[in-house]
């Protein structure tokens, strides 16, 4: 039981480090990007042409934000 708990904990820690690690802003902005795109293309049933432009644009904004944050810190 203890071994199983250790494995689950290790697995969870690995994914936390892998996806969040020292750049939590990238995880948050990616979730927001996908959430906004889902709202537009699925829930709101707005023409998917908007999502085609919006999804890559939000990804670019995420990249700019994380790099500016890193540059500003130094």
């Amino acid at each position: 039981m203890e071994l199983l708990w250790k494995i689950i904990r290790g697995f969870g820690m690995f994914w936390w480090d892998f996806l969040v690690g020292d750049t939590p802003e990238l995880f948050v902005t990616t979730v927001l990007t996908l959430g906004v795109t889902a709202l537009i293309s699925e829930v709101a049933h707005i023409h998917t042409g908007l999502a085609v432009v919006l999804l890559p644009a939000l990804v670019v904004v995420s990249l700019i934000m994380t790099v500016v944050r890193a540059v500003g810190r130094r």
Partner: protein
Amino acid sequence: MLALSTSVSGLSVMMVAVFVACAVEMVEALTIIVAVGHTTGWRHALRGAAVALLALAVIVGAFGPALIHIPLNILRLVVGGVLLVFGLQWLRKAILRSTGYKAKHDEDEIFRETVAEIEAVTDQGQRERVAFVMAFKGVFLEGLEVVITVLTLGTSARHLSLAIATAVGALVLVTLIGLVVARQLSSVPENAMKMTVGIMLVAYGTFWSGEGLKVSWPGNDAMLLGLVALYAVVVWAMVAIIKSIAPVKVSA
């Protein structure tokens, strides 16, 4: 004819991404193996590397077939999200390294550190155990990123076997080159390779997550090439802008 050409472009991006990701991670792992081999002999270095490769193959064997059974839209949305985070992390590091805001990966430094760590152990038996563990960890940890790339790209594209074959091809090629150049691994343009992989991972992440959210991309798979071009231009522009408006001051 159009369907054939578009699926070929999608597969080409996947193969290049897997190949370069595998090659760049292998360069890092190979540096550790060469350092361990030079210090304690090749038996322990190669044994550690072989056990790590076996462990990685078990992970692919266990998770690969399981992932294929997940509904395609959900798989592509989750995998796309993971690829986006992973690719953006790689791009962030590559941009910071290109502009001098982060130190470049130094294979010579890794080699020196590995040798020093092994030589600090005086007991022969203990030293052999340390050598084995270091070779295992070097290959396993670097290989884990390749495994995630292979599993996510391979299962989403429904071409897991092709992704595995590409990774094995890169593994064999880098090993052969490594045997020839041995200590000159530091001359590999690692940051440029990581930037290329980062661009492809982000392009694939955008594409698959969009597919998972039922976004109909113009030109279907051919859109991948458009996304690669878009992100390449953005990264190039970001590096140029940072270098011109906020250059790193090098102290004399």
